[in-house]
């Protein structure tokens, strides 16, 4: 019992540090990648001086994230004279917390057996092994959708309680857009659920560790390439980023639903957005890119299709799986940033038309084809 608690605390600490790390690093990656994509240098002026010397550490502008955080903490927290200060104060947290909670059901590694890592640990943990996931829930994907749906409430609360017309418009746009795209998001995942026959994310990842036709890794993107594209598009729309950033379109609505927020409250909205990039990356990795699996890799080591096997110690397997998961998430995040700096923004009516008249029927068609295929293959 105590061992379970210790393991859970370790996993929670790992998950929170990973998410916060991604949130901070992605602000830097976004700036630098945008700069390199457009022949610029990017943020490179913030530095830390080693005390007592004239040595300035610049490190390719990595300290700009720290400078931003410091600025947001020290800025004046300007509040509007709104009639609903409670909703105004609570809204950033309603946006921020569910984003963190979603990560609870995402498996970020295979099974962890502490006794195999280091023999003396067996005295405390026994021979038990834990899946590397904070909450091993059967409801997996449903929990993800339930929590990510909560962020809409935060956006609406923020827009409503600011008593500002720009904020209200932004909140309305956020509400209609996010609810529309949530439908598409769920429909695209439904195909995968049909194939794997479960909503438990840990099981889904385990089922992706095999191979198809002998050589292709059995990843979701191989079964459902079309759904993968739709899922990524809907997830970016859900995250309200360009090309779907209608709720905060700067040229139309100043900053949309968080126009009236300043200092760290605004920082929370921005930080939630960046962490949500990482969450979308983690979800996409888990559902479509085989999670922590490398091709041909199992919990025991590598097993190549030709018949060769390479056995690996448990510690190496755990580290590889954690690193592979982080690397895949980072690549998907980088791809999202590439999209963000490539495509122009939609017009507002186009966003909803795109959701209901283009993506929704396509997702339905994908679901029908998948259902028929699954039925035909089972029969």
């Amino acid at each position: 019992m105590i061992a379970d608690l210790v393991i859970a605390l370790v996993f929670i600490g790992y998950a929170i540090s990973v998410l916060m790390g991604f949130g901070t690093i992605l602000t830097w990656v976004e700036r630098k990648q945008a700069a390199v994509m457009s022949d610029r240098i990017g943020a490179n002026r913030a530095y830390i001086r080693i005390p007592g010397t004239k040595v300035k550490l610049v490190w390719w502008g990595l300290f700009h994230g720290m400078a931003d955080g410091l600025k947001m903490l020290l800025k004046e927290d300007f509040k509007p004279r709104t009639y609903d200060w409670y909703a105004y104060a609570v809204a950033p947290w309603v946006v921020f917390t569910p984003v963190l909670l979603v990560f609870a059901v995402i498996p970020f590694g295979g099974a962890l057996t502490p006794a195999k890592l280091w023999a003396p640990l067996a005295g405390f943990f026994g021979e038990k092994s834990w899946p590397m996931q904070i909450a091993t829930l059967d409801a997996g994907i449903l929990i993800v959708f339930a929590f990510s749906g909560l962020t809409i409430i935060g956006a609406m609360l923020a827009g409503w309680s600011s008593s500002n017309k720009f904020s209200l418009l932004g909140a309305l746009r956020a509400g209609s857009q996010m609810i529309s795209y949530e439908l598409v998001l769920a429909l695209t995942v439904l195909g995968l659920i049909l194939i794997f026959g479960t909503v438990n994310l840990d099981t889904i990842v385990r089922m992706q560790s095999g191979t198809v036709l002998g050589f292709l890794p059995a990843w979701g993107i191989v079964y459902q390439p079309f759904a993968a594209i739709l899922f990524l598009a809907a997830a970016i729309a859900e995250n309200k980023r360009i090309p779907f950033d209608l709720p905060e379109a700067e040229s139309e609505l100043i900053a949309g639903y968080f126009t009236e927020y300043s200092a760290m409250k605004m920082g929370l909205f921005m930080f939630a957005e960046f962490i949500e990039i990482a969450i979308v990356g983690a979800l996409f990795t888990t559902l479509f890119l085989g999670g922590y699996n490398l091709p041909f890799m199992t919990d025991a080591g590598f097993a190549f299709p030709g018949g060769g096997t390479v056995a690996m110690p448990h510690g190496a397997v755990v580290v590889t799986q954690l690193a592979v998961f982080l690397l895949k998430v980072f690549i998907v995040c980088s791809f999202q940033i590439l999209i963000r700096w490539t495509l122009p923004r939609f017009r507002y009516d186009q966003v909803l038309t795109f959701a209901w008249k283009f993506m929704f029927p396509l997702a339905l068609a994908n679901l029908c084809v998948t259902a028929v295929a699954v039925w035909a293959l089972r029969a």
Partner: protein
Amino acid sequence: MSRKPHVRKLYWNEPEMGLWERSYLPEIVRGLLITGGVFLRNMAKWMTGRKGALTTYYPEETRWDYAAANRGKHVLTRRPDGTPQCIACNMCATVCPAKVIEIEAGFDPADTAHPKFPVRFEIDYSRCVFCGLCVEACPEDAIRMAKEVPDLPSDDRRTMWLAKEELLQWQPQGDVAKPYPPAPPGAGKADRS
């Protein structure tokens, strides 16, 4: 009252999109390939130690392609005895559109030809627009502009002032075009032709 239905105006450069463009995804992939290609190309340059950007790291790095006609710094000329040629008449300060020149005049009864001289002569380079009007206004040819660009950028605008001491670095004796003392009118014409 009946209203005419709105008819969208057709422009001469109306985009013609075929099925390929309308199907959305191929064109998005094409755009992503362009930006991704630029990213990879620049990244490869950075990784191999070259510069992958068009930006100049000012002020650590100055441009090499300043125009030949660029004049970036003022020079106060001197008489052969080393005193500034300036007579503190304030004409440059008056004509200056950015009001960056500050002159404090002094009186020297020993020098009968030029009893007025500048005690202070300072230029604020944080505001100077390098228009050259001060050079044109000067009746004594005391201020000129040189081709060099002063290395002034800093975090503090108070360090962007140049005073008389830094500006007085040039004696015009070696200047063939403007000999000193100036030749009397008509004297040098025979030589030049």
